[in-house]
């Protein structure tokens, strides 16, 4: 079951920054992987036998670094280097795949033989020229300076400032944990269709967790952000310190939280990260693989009403510097903006090559993989609802008794029956149109094809999240974004403890 998790683990966080040299955008030569073009052509030729419709080789090298702070000191620094290649061949609905972290021509050949296995036919002898066909015009994350030029010391200093800022916010903040993860991926894909495309993909995230204590009452608050931007982003507009204050504020607020209600209620979702609703309720259900297999609750619903007419939802991989954005997807297709639901009517799916071909529908640039070890799947990029016309204050005022949820932990969905959950981490009661007491976290549960029909008001205040989402599907994690204006859902089940 796929799900979206705001990766704020109190335990520990993965790593990050890059230190390979930055290539000029979108031109990554095979030499980067110590290979010659001829060797790549030979491997592609080996896999491209008659029964194989399509084959590709994906090369990746990623350097990650993580620096983390707890108990007032920056005590951990972790670096990892991963490189390898994945070879894939498709024949009809069949996919053969192999990967290796050795990039020798011999390893590529072994991988090619394995991938070809599914075609069940002898080795071909027609060489496939890998011509350089330029793709895409996006340059969504130009970095003037490689993230690796940022000295470890600068990150250490920033984490120390975050610790002080969070503690200064309120003396009841007793623990502060923060980490900076930077990640630099260089990818290159060569296909039997003659495509050769590469990209350099920077990514970073800063996250802060605070624990507040008052007597025996202990509460937690988390916040963070990031994307495909330069490190200076965290200094601009005092963002890093604002993250620290926000995490502290949530922890302090929860000291006074009362039990959440249980049962069906009207719920107002705040703008931004609550867009996780869309990711779970409709996004996964509109990924082409589940629809080709007809195992999605949305199968066969194209052209039908799946939401109220105030809802228009898009998946857009072309937003500059966002966490979910990409110049090209992992099959070399330029990313696009895809309308999923327009005025409440289901319009389209998001696709990768295999599913677009089998379903006879357009490529949307959503073929993504976690790394060279993983198979491409149709995945979301940045998924959000377009702004409406309502005043956010009017939306709150319209509710007599309900819940106002502004921040969430994670969510999950069962594609087949469409049931999804997402769990509030900051929410309030609405009483007679007024936002009153904070309530403890509660899970909201609904049915994907039904819940958006309950959306009766959409605010004009569309916001995207701060850059923290990681989506999980078939064991693969990829960075994504979500967004939402303030909306009113007339009825949804709230899983609190209070009757």
């Amino acid at each position, binding site marked *: 079951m796929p*799900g979206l998790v705001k990766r704020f683990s109190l335990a520990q966080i993965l*790593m990050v920054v890059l230190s390979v040299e930055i290539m000029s955008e979108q031109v990554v030569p095979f030499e980067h992987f110590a290979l010659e073009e001829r060797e790549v052509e030979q491997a592609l030729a080996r896999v491209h036998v008659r029964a194989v419709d399509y084959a590709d080789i994906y090369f990746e090298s990623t350097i990650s670094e993580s620096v983390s702070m707890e108990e007032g000191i*920056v*005590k951990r620094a972790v670096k990892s*280097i991963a490189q390898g290649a994945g070879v894939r061949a498709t024949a009809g609905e*069949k996919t053969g795949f192999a990967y290796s972290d050795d990039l020798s021509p011999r390893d590529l050949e072994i991988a090619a033989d394995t991938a070809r296995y599914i075609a069940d036919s002898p080795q071909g002898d027609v060489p496939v020229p890998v011509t350089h066909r330029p793709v895409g015009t996006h340059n969504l994350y130009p970095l003037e300076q490689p993230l690796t030029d940022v000295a470890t010391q600068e990150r250490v200093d920033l984490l120390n400032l975050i610790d002080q800022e969070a503690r200064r916010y309120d003396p009841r903040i007793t623990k502060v944990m923060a980490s900076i993860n930077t990640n630099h991926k260089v990818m290159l894909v060569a296909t039997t269709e003659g495509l050769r495309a590469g990209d350099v993909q920077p990514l970073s995230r800063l996250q802060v967790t605070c624990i507040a204590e008052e007597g025996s009452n202990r509460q937690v608050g988390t916040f963070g952000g990031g994307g495909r931007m330069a490190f200076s982003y965290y200094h601009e507009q005092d963002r890093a310190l604002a993250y620290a204050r926000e995490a502290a504020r949530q922890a302090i607020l929860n000291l006074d939280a009362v039990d959440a209600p249980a049962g069906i209620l009207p719920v107002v979702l705040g703008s931004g990260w609550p867009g996780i609703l869309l990711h779970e309720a409709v996004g996964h259900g509109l990924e082409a693989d589940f629809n080709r297999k007809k195992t999605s609750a949305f199968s066969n619903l194209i052209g039908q009403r799946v939401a109220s007419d105030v809802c228009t939802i898009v998946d857009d991989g072309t937003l500059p510097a966002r966490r979910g954005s990409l110049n090209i997807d992992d099959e070399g297709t330029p990313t696009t903006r895809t309308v999923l639901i327009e005025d409440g009517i289901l319009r389209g799916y998001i696709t990768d090559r295999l599913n677009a071909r089998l379903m006879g529908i357009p490529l949307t640039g959503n073929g993504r993989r976690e790394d060279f070890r993983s198979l491409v799947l149709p995945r979301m990029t940045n998924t959000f609802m377009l702004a409406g016309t309502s005043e956010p204050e009017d939306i709150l005022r319209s509710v007599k008794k309900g819940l106002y949820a502004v921040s969430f932990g994670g969510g999950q969905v069962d594609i087949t029956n*469409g049931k999804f959950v997402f769990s509030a981490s900051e929410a309030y009661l609405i009483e007679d149109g007024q936002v009153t007491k904070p309530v403890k976290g509660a899970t909201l549960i609904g049915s994907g094809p039904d819940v958006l029909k309950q959306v009766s008001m959409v605010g004009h205040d569309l916001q995207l999240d701060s850059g923290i989402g990681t989506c999980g599907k078939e064991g693969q994690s990829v960075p994504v974004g979500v967004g939402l204006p303030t909306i009113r859902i007339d009825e949804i089940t*709230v899983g609190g*403890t209070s*009757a």
Partner: protein
Amino acid sequence: MHESPEVLKTLAAELIGRVKAHGVTEADVMVAEGDSLSVQVRLAAVDRLSKAREKSLGIRVFFGKRSASASTSDFSEASLKQLVADTCALAKAVAEDETSGLPEQAAMATGVPDLDLYDPTTMPVEEAIDVAQRAERAALDVDPRMTNSEGAECDSSSGAVVLANTHGFLGYHRSSRFSLSVAPVVEGSDDQGMQRDYWYTVSRKRHELEDPESVGRTAAERTLRRLGARKVGTQRVPVIFDPETACSMLGHLASAVSGYSLYKGASFLLGQLGKPIALQHVNVEDNGCLPGKLGSRPFDGEGLPTRKTMILEHGVLSNYLLDTYSGRKLGMASTGNASRSIGDNPTVSPSNLFFHPGETSPGEIIQSVTQGLYVTELIGFGVNMVTGDYSRGASGFWIENGELAYPVEEVTIAGNLKQMFQDIESIGNDLVFRGKLASPTIRIREMMVGGH
């Protein structure tokens, strides 16, 4: 495909020599390699076949009380030289941490017991395809409404790991894993919609995998019984977790008693050591040296011997799960639960963690409930480990007068983990190890079910 133990050991020892030459005071090195095969079949045809070879090495260095870690999959001379230099530079950038360091030399494992974790059987691709096809066919044959499938998957993998440190420890062990799972889809009448469920078998030995037909039939039965699921009213009732969902209670317990959660103040069980947190009949054991089990290993991620640790003894919280670092933070010795991903700092994880079985059969537990919820699936992340507040999506069956009356979905169950552990009223006699966490059926006295 494997390198010989000697090649891996020599590499690890050689790396220890390299980092020593950089003037480290302490260090450890992990080298791992593995092979895997995964076959996915859908509606009888091969959907995906994937094969992989992987290797990775990680180093952790200490300069006094400063430390850093790094890993790479590139074993070339140039890469290793760079890695060692970068890691040493990184260590000098972080602050001193008084608690850091390797375990005491005297605590290191002195031998590597054979826990029977490795089966050298290789599964040919044709056999994996056949096993997956048989399991899926058995599922689809159960009922004419079983017309679709997410597929059946048969995986096998094996790997070896070497851990070496500057105390002179050099441990090697290898293990294998075989698994088969099936996820059929049933299409009901128009108002019933579709349902999907699954079943699986997993083991360290090829011959211990359950028979594909029986896995397929179980998956089909679990899927069919969900047809026509509905919501129930919001109410406070007894809740029974089936063995699969009951394991999640052990998962929450494991994070709450992890030394890292405790010293960070991020556990709802803070300050509860030695106190009763459950009724007398509740016993939870962690045991890393059970032969052949999925959570067993001959030494932990720091090279300490694994062992048996009682977490709950007659309801009393008797031990935490610790590695060296978190143990020192709490003034205690490691329990041999250090877990390592290559090139990262140790963290704590359970080995084989399980409830001791009770005397009651699952049927009797269900019969003991007049009105309640029998939970077979949980979704979402609605658990706050700091406060224990719990609210998750659930599906399962409504119990009426001691019988499973009809399937339920789109409801939440909510409470607080502290209370839920106090409220474990019955533990079944149906303990089966199907993973690192294993639980019999358990009954919780009462939780809030959120529905319509």
